[in-house]
């Protein structure tokens, strides 16, 4: 049973990093007024800068009722069938709304992890968020219009603080956190389309702090898409990208986890890797996607 926390840590780290754009948010994800409020004032930002804390982060899993269906992004801009050598013979998935070419091999792997850990993985991540250990904020600046804005500046930063957690077991919205200047930050540009923030592809280093593991993991070619709620309602979205197996195993080597688990993880990731095929025909990265819930927040510089 001691393996369970270790497994959670291993995959939680992968999670936290995730960041590739993607698939439209689920149908119930949008802010409640989005479908009813078409007034121009809805798009008027209260401030040109808004911040959103990632209040929930969880792995996207393959739909248990529909094989091959999962949210994610087409990271390699191609639709691959099973046996495609350019994806190390892994076929792409299909998004719930029918988009082809979804690269998200972790979606097939995570259910196995769930079986090994009794479903503790998401709980470990949520606990890390709720106790302030893993607070990540999206800062969006230069907002002229919350509905359509061709260019906004986006930063992904790590913050600290002891958050208030509501009875929904998520960090309350509107809280103020302190910027962790020493943590890696990503600065990029994005756009707002139809009230949804989109960014990427960008290489996105994401800080991970779950249980006693703390590290930074790079999401290559990451994309992000999340709805923006002007009046404090939750934003829903997905981030996705490719994780380097070598970097991941390097991180694993620094963690206090059993060797046999390390070997198992290495084997599994190698088996599921589907991106960045090298000259030897081996894929160096594995695709993944995370579902996120954002809530408005403030960041003290």
């Amino acid at each position, binding site marked *: 049973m001691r393996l369970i926390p270790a497994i959670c840590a291993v995959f939680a780290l992968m999670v936290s990093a995730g960041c590739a754009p993607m698939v439209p948010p689920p149908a119930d994800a949008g802010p409640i007024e989005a479908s009813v409020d078409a007034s121009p004032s809805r798009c008027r930002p209260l401030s040109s800068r808004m911040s959103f804390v990632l209040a929930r982060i969880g792995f996207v899993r393959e739909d248990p009722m529909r094989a091959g269906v999962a949210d994610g992004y087409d990271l390699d801009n191609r639709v691959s069938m099973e046996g495609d050598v350019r994806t190390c013979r892994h076929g792409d998935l299909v998004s719930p709304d029918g988009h082809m070419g979804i690269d998200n091999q972790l979606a097939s792997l995570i259910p196995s992890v769930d079986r090994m850990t009794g479903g503790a993985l998401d709980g470990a991540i949520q606990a890390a968020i709720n106790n302030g250990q893993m607070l990540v904020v999206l800062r969006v600046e230069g907002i002229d219009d919350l509905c359509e804005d061709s260019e906004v500046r986006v930063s992904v930063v790590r913050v600290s603080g002891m958050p208030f957690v509501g009875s929904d077991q*998520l960090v309350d919205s509107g809280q103020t956190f302190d910027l962790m200047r020493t943590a890696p930050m990503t600065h990029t540009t994005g756009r707002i389309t139809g009230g949804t923030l989109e960014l990427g592809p960008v290489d996105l280093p994401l800080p991970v702090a779950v249980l006693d593991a703390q590290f930074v993991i790079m999401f290559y070619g990451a994309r992000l898409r999340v709805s923006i709620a002007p009046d404090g309602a939750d934003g829903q979205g997905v981030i996705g990208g490719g994780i380097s197996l070598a970097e991941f195993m390097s991180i694993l080597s620094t963690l206090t986890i059993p060797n046999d688990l390390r070997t198992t993880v290495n084997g599994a990731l190698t088996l599921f890797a589907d991106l960045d095929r090298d000259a030897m025909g081996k894929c160096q990265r594995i695709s993944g996607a995370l579902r996120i819930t954002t809530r408005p927040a403030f960041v003290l510089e």
Partner: protein
Amino acid sequence: MLQCTTLRKYGLALTLTAAACTPPVSPPVDVTDVTSVDATATGDVAVRPPPGPYVPHVPRLRRLTRSQYRHSLQDVFGATLVIPRALEPDIVSEGSSSVGSSESSISQRGTEQYETAAYEIAEQLLREPARRATVVPCVPTAVRDDGCTEQVVRAHGRRVYRRALEASEIATLVALGARAATTLNSFDRGIEYVIATMLQSPDFLFREELGREQDGERRYEGFALASRLSFFLWDGPPDDALLDVAGRGELRGDELARQVDRMLADAKLSRGLEAFVEDWLRLGELDELTRDAVIFPAFAADFGPSAREEVQRVVRYIALERDGDFRELLRTRETYVNRRLASLYGVAFPVRDAPPTQFERVTLPESQPRRGLLGMAAFLALQAHPISTSPTLRGKYVRELILCEAIPAPPVGVDTAIPPPSSENRTLRSRLEFHRQASSCRGCHRLLDNIGLGFENFDAIGRFRRADNGVVIDARGDIDGVPYEDPAGIAGILAEHPSFPACVASRLYRHAWGYHDDEMQRAELERLTTSFASGGYRLRALMRTLVLGETFVRAANFAVLPLPPLPDAGAADASDASAARDASAAVDVVTATDVSDASDASDASDVTAEDGR
């Protein structure tokens, strides 16, 4: 009208007679006629006939509120004194604990709680050597040392009773201490009994502000006036300086003004202000605030206390720190928040690593419609239901507490239920339309909902929202014909509404007197309102005007009713002796046989070596 409570310890009995229980004399007010309510809602006082001559109130005994009890003890014995929490609760009458304090006695349970608290405090005072030294200013030479005991009584008796003690009272307490010390073989235990006795005395638990008869009226002077001043301005007892002046009979004229100005400049003024605000705005109800955790996941146990603290801090800031226009309370964008409230209001908390209890002043963004008191959680959350907002409650609060208008209760038998959401009526505004159309409801609901619906942009915990049940909220409306677009507009209208300063003056007067003001005091209320306006709506100045006004020292005369039969002859004798202290006083402290006879130390049935209590 007779209320009687017996303080069990030593058989002390307190009889409160007529004056304590006389209901306020007020003409009947017809609040059932919607037409008359409409008239009051206009805020137009000019159409009313000129007020008649001021008719003073009949004095009442006022039981110390819990905060006054706490302040009284901490002022006398030190701020670090831990005050027991299990005490008789404050009685709220017509929404006011100040009025309730003048209409309530002490229950049997409360008597026991005061007794327990008195002994806990007395024991606490003598436990630590350093504190004991401040309580016992002498070194006893024996287990029984009447001289030293008398020094203790003289050192604290005046502050505790808020007046000079008479020789007979001192002798009684010294004799009590002597007997307890002898029986329990401990000087300190004797002192403990002395202190505990004083703290259970009606002279401590009640404000004996009855005035002295003069020319068919009563006038407050001396210690009674000092007590009235200090409990109003400081929510606590007079300090030594004020008692000295009162004791010399100099609390009048210029010296009275000097003392009032001194008190208004004292930090303790914030306590008096806090008590007034608590009473006026019914902040005590925040203690009971609950919300459905599923619908409002951000609601937490510290929500109510945080909301209460915010109101108090903003009022203190406007009225004391800035000494500014009190109408700013309704329209200011400045407020005090802790992390919890900052999160609720959607403003950044300006301090790093702040504990949840830390409050900071912030300025709400102009782009938000949240303004002043009516944008605070204390109003928005308190005037709502556990699972939904209530425009009716919010409107009623504004009408009654901000504009001081009388809103009648719903007619008997009327269905007050609001239809559930439907595809046609998704918002609360549309669902309430039913009440606004029904002939039996529309009179009041037009008054209430026209205001309350303007706050629909704030949910039942006060968080801003744009939509209700998926439909964009229409927060427009009007107050007595003046249109507004959003809650910020409401704040602006109410801040300029002529009824608001009049209402503040009225509530302050009510708080000072513990009485419902009525038509017979309208002349004084109009004087206060005029003064409030001419002074730039500064609350501190209004308080000064109130306490230095002639009416503050006037009271109606009253008849002393016969005392009820006493349990035995000894008690009757003691009653007579006590009554002689102030023949016209409506309170008699009746001491039982074993205590009243200071020379009789043989009957110590209530004090045993095994159980001093």
